[in-house]
């Protein structure tokens, strides 16, 4: 590899941004095919009910109606991410478990006809008792949402490393606190949409926003009983994911069924409310954290019990229940640790993996460290540094951390924020807080855990890269093209990209586990190196130099240190064609993880090949009369291995801070009626941050140059979404001189804490 990099580390505009700026990028809902029908879904008005009958005979009589489907068409086959979590019939037959669950659907010539027919479907329900929180659902005698799960416990992750009780006995100080937060939600700007098109050869092509085209295709092929190669998930522009497009939804199953039944293309576009309630939402959470520290603030033992409101079905439950713990155990040294994570079924929409992975978990851990530090008379910054993970260490559950810039993140963020001048010295109602976190780059996924790529040279000297990596908006397309251009010595514009199309692209794990740069980027890099080696081998005789003396630069193959001896890449490609050796590179990246590791049965072993780390500092001002929090400044830092494109990395930081920090810690929460109806599924009532809500942000990119990542890169941005929330929670507690245990920190919650403090009441966490 040439030591001089032309693209890596440069602030480059993204290759996909011009089409988006022109309004020419096609999102799923923009796709229109000849003879396309329009679909609408009938949803349950009950949070829990038995379906007694579905009669759509009247609906079929509406002019323009071409197909109707209900539970009878689903063959009651249960779907699940894991073999042991198959609990969701994609169109339920006998029972609905949340308000808004799919019951039937119609495809018609127009949306108006579909809507009119929908109103004529007669469904008889027998309402059943509704359980809307984990306590009701786990109560003795509560009806079971899934018969094989006693107490409605869907998932129990149990981890016990070291001797926690002994650690507490040896501790100088032990604290126990409970933290809680209701559900947060993705609110990606694009509402969900699916287009399904039956093709003449019996295959089915589909477009939908997704985080893993190959995983969508596999699940749909199973559900539709079609060969995998006949379910083609195509590429389209995707309007954000944040964890909320990861698994399989009834929407694509329904659109596929309707399309097959009508033998016409079908488009199903969700409303904003449907996107909020019938795709995924975050988990509501109660977290009990007990931590013991020595006199210097080193954590000796920690015991966490967490109850997560998972909603009606499993989805990615075993992962979602584990990740909050894993992020913590990666970030901090923990000689003795115990975790019991329970995901509980309730009559709410389905909980999915959410970028912030539990405000009431991560913020609880850090806020409790602040409180312990305060009791010990220590600076929370020093306590963080004492407990911070270092490269070369192994996490409690057995992952080697091969690169780690956490200490640098903490130190640089604190310095930039002026921590030492401010902590404990700010005027009244001003506060400063620090959050630190770590995230994975991928999970053990067995045969689906690796990414492969191909690259072919075209006779004009340009190259086409073929990769299964999907771009949800974070810039993966650009990442792949930039890596290819760097390796092949071509311009960005010389690289054509075919990606995220299951008919053409080789397997990829998907972009929801922060693995795309490591695995997908690594695979493209390897494929390009393979192609380049072929190209140099062809050029070597022509240039009368051994291949190892050649390099590709600016569309030329040249002899190193002798730039006058050069051959245009196009000419080398033609030479290869003439010799019957067309240049076709292939490469793969299979992360070194322990594939015996399993979320529930064996949560031990190497989880990810590498991990990223981050630290944020927040400074806030609280209005004591209203409880309103104003964030004055955020310093965001992360060890992303290497910033392939700092412009994109900064965008991930800033967007993460908005979603996890400003929105997630100050405003975002779903609210429910006692019937299980969400009160705020729309942008009007669910408060996502706007430009006027955002504080000044400073970005600090820390580069630990990971030994496995392409050019040293790991993952960018997710830890910032978490550590910004942690920093703000700490800063507010620092400002008002009292911890707040329930999130988000709305004015009402902050004001209550201030009033309780003034009344001399003890600070208490939420009551389960």
């Amino acid at each position, binding site marked *: 590899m040439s030591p001089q990099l032309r693209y890596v580390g440069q*602030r480059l*505009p*993204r290759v*996909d*941004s*011009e*089409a*988006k*700026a*022109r*309004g*020419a*990028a*096609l*999102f799923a*809902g*923009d796709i*229109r095919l000849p003879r396309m029908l329009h679909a609408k879904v009938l949803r349950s008005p009950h949070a829990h009910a038995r379906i007694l009958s579905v009669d759509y005979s009247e609906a079929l009589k509406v002019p323009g109606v071409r197909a109707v489907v209900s539970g009878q068409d689903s063959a009651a086959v249960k779907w699940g991410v894991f073999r042991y979590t198959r609990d969701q019939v994609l169109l339920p037959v006998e029972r609905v478990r949340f308000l808004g669950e799919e019951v039937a659907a119609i495809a018609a010539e127009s949306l108006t006809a579909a809507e*009119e027919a929908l109103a004529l479907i007669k469904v008889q329900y027998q309402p059943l008792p509704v359980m809307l929180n984990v306590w009701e659902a786990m109560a003795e005698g509560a009806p079971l949402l899934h018969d094989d799960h006693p107490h409605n416990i869907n998932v129990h992750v149990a981890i016990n490393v070291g001797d926690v009780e002994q650690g507490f006995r040896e501790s100088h100080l032990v604290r126990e606190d409970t933290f809680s937060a209701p559900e947060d939600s*993705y*609110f*990606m*700007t*694009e*509402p969900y949409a699916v287009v399904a098109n039956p093709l003449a050869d019996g295959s089915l092509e589909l477009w939908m926003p997704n985080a893993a085209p190959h995983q969508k295709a596999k699940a749909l092929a199973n559900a539709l009983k079609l060969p995998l190669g006949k379910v083609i998930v195509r590429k389209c*522009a*995707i*309007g*954000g994911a*944040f964890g909320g497009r990861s698994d399989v939804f009834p929407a694509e199953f329904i659109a596929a069924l309707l399309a097959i039944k009508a033998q016409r293309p079908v488009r199903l576009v969700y*409303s*904003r409310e449907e996107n909020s309630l019938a795709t995924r939402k975050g988990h509501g959470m109660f977290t009990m954290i007990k931590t013991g520290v020595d006199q210097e603030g080193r954590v000796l033992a920690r015991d966490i019990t967490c109850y997560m409101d998972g909603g009606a079905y499993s989805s990615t439950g075993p992962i979602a229940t584990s990740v909050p713990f894993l992020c913590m155990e990666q970030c901090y040294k923990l000689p003795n640790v115990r975790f019991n994570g329970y995901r509980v079924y309730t009559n709410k929409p389905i909980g999915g993996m959410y970028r912030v992975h539990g405000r009431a978990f991560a913020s609880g851990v850090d806020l409790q460290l602040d409180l312990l530090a305060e009791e010990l008379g220590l600076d929370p910054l020093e306590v963080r540094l004492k407990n911070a993970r270092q490269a070369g260490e192994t996490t409690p559950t057995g992952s080697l951390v091969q690169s780690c810039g956490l200490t640098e993140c903490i130190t640089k963020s604190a310095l930039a924020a002026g921590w030492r001048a401010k902590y404990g010295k700010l005027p009244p109602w001003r506060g400063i807080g620090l959050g630190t976190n770590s995230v994975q780059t991928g999970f053990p996924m067995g045969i689906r855990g690796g990414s492969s790529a191909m690259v072919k040279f075209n006779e004009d000297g340009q190259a086409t890269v073929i990769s299964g990596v999907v771009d*949800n*908006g*974070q*810039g993966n397309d650009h990442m792949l093209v930039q890596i290819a251009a760097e390796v092949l010595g071509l311009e960005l514009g010389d690289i054509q990209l075919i990606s995220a199309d299951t008919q053409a692209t080789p397997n990829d794990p998907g972009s929801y586990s922060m693995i795309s740069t490591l695995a997908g980027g690594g695979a493209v890099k390897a494929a390009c190196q393979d192609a380049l080696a072929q190209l140099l081998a062809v050029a070597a005789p022509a240039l009368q130099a051994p291949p190892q003396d050649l390099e590709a630069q600016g569309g030329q193959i040249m002899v190193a240190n002798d730039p006058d001896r050069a051959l245009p890449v196009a000419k080398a490609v033609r030479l290869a064609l003439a010799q019957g050796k067309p240049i076709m590179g292939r490469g793969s990246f299979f992360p070194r993880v322990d594939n015996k590791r399993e979320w529930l049965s064996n949560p031990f072993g190497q989880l990810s090949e590498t991990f990223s780390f981050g630290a944020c500092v927040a400074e806030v001002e609280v209005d004591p009369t209203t409880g309103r929090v104003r964030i004055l400044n955020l310093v965001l830092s992360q060890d992303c291995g290497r910033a392939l494109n700092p*412009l*994109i990395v*900064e*965008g991930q*930081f*800033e*967007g*993460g*801070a*908005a*979603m996890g920090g*400003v929105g997630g810690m100050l405003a975002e929460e779903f609210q429910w009626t006692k019937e299980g109806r969400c009160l705020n599924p*729309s*942008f*009007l009532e669910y408060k*996502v*941050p*706007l*430009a*006027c809500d*955002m504080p*000044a*942000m400073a970005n600090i990119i820390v580069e630990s140059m990971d030994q496995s990542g392409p050019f040293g890169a790991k993952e960018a941005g997710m830890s910032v979404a978490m550590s910004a929330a942690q920093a703000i929670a700490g800063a507010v507690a620092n400002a008002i001189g009292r911890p707040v245990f329930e999130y988000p920190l709305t004015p009402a919650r902050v004001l209550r804490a201030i009033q309780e403090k003034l009344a001399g009441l003890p600070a208490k966490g939420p009551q389960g």
Partner: protein
Amino acid sequence: MDKPRPKQIFSAQVNGQWVELLIAPQETLLEVLRDHLELTGSKEGCGEGVCGACTVLVDNQPRRACLTLALEAQGLPVLTVEGLAQGGELSREQRSFIAHGAIQCGYCAPGMLMATRDLLSRQPTPGEEAIRRQISGHVCRCTGYAKIVEAVAALGQASPGEDRP
């Protein structure tokens, strides 16, 4: 179902071209742009005028196309994101958004760009506060708005932070 109301002729100058269409009177401007004219750059993010992704300029005024009846734009010039580039050349707003990394998933970009065009037409060198006020009618879930503010500020050559408290 109610008897459908008679269709009407809708005529407007969309992105510089006069169009004439037979539409139902209850159709929104967004439906007419997306479904009849196949100008799908303007997006529907919420359908209730909150997210701003459908924003277009009607007679040089920003309008939520999802809440605007098409017939309200009768006879008027309508500018959508597809009309910003002239003769294949990107507009300065588009160039600045691309250069500053202000576009991630791109779903809000059409509305943001139209809001930018509107702001700059009234206030050629807006300060940061004015920029934030203008784009606060638009939801972006990816960027945290920082790079969008930078992209707009660069067009007015006002330095970011100038008029922020």
